Structures are given as structure tokens and as C-alpha cells.
């Protein structure tokens, strides 16, 4: 039993997700409903995508405290460029590039200057937040309709199930990253660098390049998260997603990825993000105060890590 969980780390989170879903389906009349499920997924798209980038970094035994701040900077950049007359397509590309570059700076400091990721990204969080506030002059901007809000538009499959473009893009990003991590040499190297950097170095893997590329890819994903955020709420707000970094870490950890690196993956992160969203949705529908929801999420994070340790202990 323990061995099965240790070898297949997605098993525990998936079981937990099914359990909470069954619980809320019984406890409320409103939970078990296609529209509700669609809403839950919509609500987890931005944090889930931030968590996807975070997963990559945590797999290398790093952490990114600046991910949400980078995405928020992205939302303002996209919006202000477009308002200023830049073609929306160029603005989106510029946003993706900017987010990639900012995260690459973090990655370079981690890989080449050998600073701890926690400190680098803590500093980056303060820097990016300050730059965002200066750039926005502290005010929010309405997002022009069109390409910038495209990810908020919906498709109705089977006549009535709502899929937003943001959901579809997030799903594509997850599938691509799952594929790259599990099927390519680069993916194996990411795990090896996080699990045992010395062994990775001795087998000839370039640790620096691998780390920097991980942060760069994560930054690109944050850029997509910024675009998704504009589709979700058509306002570029410098004060949005202030707990996005911690929420994304929560999703990754609940999804069974180890903070020590080298173990876990993006499938767990999907499940982790959904667990948090399902918990919030279900508890809201039961009429439970949001402070208790935060409490429940906190307990879940600690439980997830404890469970992770217990299954991994040598039997």
C-alpha cells in the first residue's frame, strides 16, 4: 500500500480529490452540477497555470515567490501597451517575452551566482511588485476587448458545457509540459538536477543551463497566466493575485511534488489546484466562512507534506 503510494505520487492526491468531491456532492444540492464544475475549473485556471511554472522550479529543488508578481506585471504591460496603440498581438508577444526574461534573471542568479532560490525570488518579488506599482501609478486599467480578453470567451460543448479559451490553453500547456517532462531528455535532466545535482553533474548534465532553462520556461508560462488573468477579469490591477505565489505553491505541494526536488510532476499539480478550488467552492456552498476555508487549505498543505514523508519513509 505504502509502496504503491510512494511509486505513484499522484495516487494520494487523486484519492483525496475524489473524496472531497463525493463529500460535497452528498453534503450540498448544488455541488454536483456541470456548470459548477466548469466554474471550479475556470476559477483555478490562473493559479493552476502559475502552479505549472512553479512545479518546474520546485522539481529542481527551487521555489519561485515572484511568479504571481511577474504575471501581474504582465497583465499591466499587455493592457498599457494595447491602450497606447500597440497592436494587441504584439502586446501579447511582448508580455510573454517580458515574463520570460524576468524569470530568466532569477534563474541566472540561482544557477550562476549560486544564490538560494528563496532569497533570489523574494528579492525579485519586491522588485517586480515595485516596478509594477511605478509603471501603473497604482491604478487599475480597463482591458480593451479583443485579443487581450480572448481567453475569457467561451465555447459550449455538447450544447451546454462551458469551456473558456483560458481553460483550453491551460490544458494545452499542462499536456505539453507533462509530455516534455516525461518524454524528453531535458525532462529527465530537470528531475536529476533536482534530485541529486552532484550525480547529474558527474553524468555530464549541464546543471546551469538546465536550471536557467527551467526558470525561462516557467516565466513563459507566467506570461500565459497573465493573458488568462485578463480573460478572467478584464481589469489590469497592480494589486491582484497578491497571494498567488503561495496559492501556487499550495497547489504544487498538495499535488504531491516534493519541495526537496526531483519528485512529483504536473499531473499532481492539476489535481492539487483542483482540490483547493473544489474545497473552496464546496465550503462556500455549505455556507462556511472563508476564514475556515483558508484554515482547511492550510491543514491540507501540512497533511499533504506529512503524507508525502510517511509514504517515502524506508519501510
Amino acid at each position, binding site marked *: 500500500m505504502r509502496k504503491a503510494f510512494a511509486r505513484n505520487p499522484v495516487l494520494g492526491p487523486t484519492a483525496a480529490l475524489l473524496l472531497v468531491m463525493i463529500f460535497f456532492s452528498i453534503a450540498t444540492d448544488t455541488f454536483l452540477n456541470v456548470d459548477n464544475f466548469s466554474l471550479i475549473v475556470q476559477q483555478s485556471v490562473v493559479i493552476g497555470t502559475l502552479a505549472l511554472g512553479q512545479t518546474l522550479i520546485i522539481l529542481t529543488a527551487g521555489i519561485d515567490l515572484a511568479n504571481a508578481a511577474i504575471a501581474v506585471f504582465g497583465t499591466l504591460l499587455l493592457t498599457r501597451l494595447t491602450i497606447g496603440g500597440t497592436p494587441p498581438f504584439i502586446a501579447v508577444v511582448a508580455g510573454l517575452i517580458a515574463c520570460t526574461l524576468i524569470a530568466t534573471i532569477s534563474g541566472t542568479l540561482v544557477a550562476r551566482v549560486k544564490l538560494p532560490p528563496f532569497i533570489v525570488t523574494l528579492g525579485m518579488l519586491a522588485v517586480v511588485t515595485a516596478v509594477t506599482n511605478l509603471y501603473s501609478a497604482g491604478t487599475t486599467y480597463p482591458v480593451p476587448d479583443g485579443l487581450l480578453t480572448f481567453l475569457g470567451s467561451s465555447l459550449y460543448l455538447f450544447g451546454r458545457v462551458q469551456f473558456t479559451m483560458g481553460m483550453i490553453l491551460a490544458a494545452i500547456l499542462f499536456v505539453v509540459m507533462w509530455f516534455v517532462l516525461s518524454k524528453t*531528455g531535458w525532462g529527465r535532466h530537470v528531475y536529476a538536477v533536482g534530485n541529486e545535482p552532484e550525480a547529474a553533474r558527474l553524468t555530464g548534465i549541464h546543471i546551469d543551463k538546465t536550471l536557467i532553462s527551467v526558470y525561462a520556461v516557467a516565466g513563459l508560462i507566467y506570461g500565459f497566466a497573465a493573458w488568462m488573468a485578463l480573460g478572467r477579469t478584464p481589469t489590469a490591477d497592480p494589486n491582484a493575485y497578491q497571494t498567488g505565489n503561495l496559492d501556487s505553491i499550495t497547489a504544487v505541494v498538495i499535488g504531491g511534488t516534493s519541495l526537496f526536488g526531483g*519528485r512529483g510532476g504536473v499531473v499532481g499539480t492539476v489535481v492539487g489546484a483542483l482540490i483547493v478550488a473544489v474545497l473552496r467552492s464546496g465550503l462556500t456552498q455549505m455556507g462556511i466562512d472563508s476564514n475556515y476555508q483558508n484554515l482547511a487549505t492550510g491543514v491540507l498543505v501540512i497533511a499533504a507534506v506529512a503524507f508525502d514523508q510517511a509514504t517515502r519513509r524506508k519501510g
Partner: protein
Amino acid sequence: MSTATEPSTGRTTAAAREPMMTARGLVKRYGHVTAINGADFDLYPGEVLAIVGDNGAGKSSLIKALTGALIPDAGEIKLDGKQVRFHSPVEARNEGIETVYQTLAVAPALDIATNLFLGRELRREGLLGKLRLLDRKAMRTRARDELNSLGIATIQDITQPVESLSGGQRQAVAVARAAMFGSKVVIMDEPTAALGVRETAQVLELIKRISERGLPVVLISHDMPAVFEVSDRIHVHRLGKRTGVVDPKKVSMSDVVSFITGAEDIPAEALS
């Protein structure tokens, strides 16, 4: 002493053979410290050469010079008859020199097949390979074949993570990796230092198997019984250079200890 310091190898066992790897007059200084002081080295195809010496005698520096982890200030290294000059361990590896380390050589969370091919993954053919897709099936098949041919029967499932293996089995994975990719020389730096008695015996068995394939093995070890069990010749290293190469059939373990500490000079009849 004067006879011992000359390149006097190959008198009996290797007279007719060309060496696989040689080094002459290697020197490496760090400020006032001389780590390698005119060291020589000879390795013949299919042999197990043990390198013994006290801590600080410069064994590790010699090995680092041979594997590209350190660039010597002077001296020359020949591999398979042609002169080489390695600037990094990767260059030495590309020339067919594989090293097995005492520890840290495997990633515990990754499976056995992945570890065997780490950094040298096989890609799919054609377009999928251009997309950098791994050929997992081929890697698993080759991993399985390699473990079988080395007689590592205790490892059943090559998709299990390395951390589920015993210490000896983990080292067996590292040894199998070296045997699989090493085309010319396999160097093992204290491969049994972290292992128990039975696991050490398993690793020694692997060393014999590899040398039976014609691939020479360099074994750096403090473990005298292990050295005497598997080695064909013993290279004695002292004060940064080779003081002689002895035949384990002609000397006792305590003799070798005396040669290592310098308590006794190596007598001419003990030389290999």
C-alpha cells in the same frame, strides 16, 4: 629505489601487448603543494590494475588527471597509442573513459533505466527524435541486457527507482553504466568504501566480469583483501608518484602496506 621509479612495467604480464593507457611524468602543483610529482601510469587491455597509496599520496589527483577533472602542468597521457589532453571529464568520457565514484553517482528518485542513460539518453529515430523524444523501450531493453550480461540478477525490475535498491545494487547500477559506455577504460574510485562485506563481493565480481570482456579496470582502493582478490597488478603510489608496480602473487598484503608507507623499498623481484 632507482629501478622502481623507472617506467619498468610490463616485464612479465604485458611484454607483448600495447598499453591501453599510459602517462609519463605527470606534474600538478597547487602553489607550494605538489599533488602529482612526475607520476607514471600504465594500463593494459583486459587487466585489473589496483592503485594503492596512503591518504594524500596523490592517487585521487592522478585519477583526476587521467579523467580530465584536473589538467596537469606537465607530462603526457596516451590513450590507445595516441596522445590526449583532456580539458574536462566530459572529453575523457567521450573518448571512452568511464569513472565510478564512491558515492553520489546515481539519482535515487529516478528509475534504473533512466539512471543508466542519464545525460546520454537514446532518442527515437526520425522526426520524433528531432522532437527530442526519448526511446524508452530501447533504453529499457539495453539496460536489461547490460544487467544480465554482467550477471546482476538481483535487480528484477528496471523501472523501479534506484532508492528502492540496496547500497550494493545501487553501486552495481553505477558500474553497469560505466561498463555500458566505457569503451576503453573503466576507473573505479573506492567503489566499495560505502558497502558491506557481501555487497563488496558483488561489486568485485562485477569488476572481474568487466575485465573479462577485455575492458581494463583501474581500481583505487584501501581495501587490501579486495585489491588482492581482483587485481592483476598493483600500482603503488607514494609522495605524488608511482614507486613501482607489483605482482600480487609475489608479495603479501603486509608487504604492500610497507611499500605504501615507505617502510620498505620495493624489491626488484616483486615488480610486475
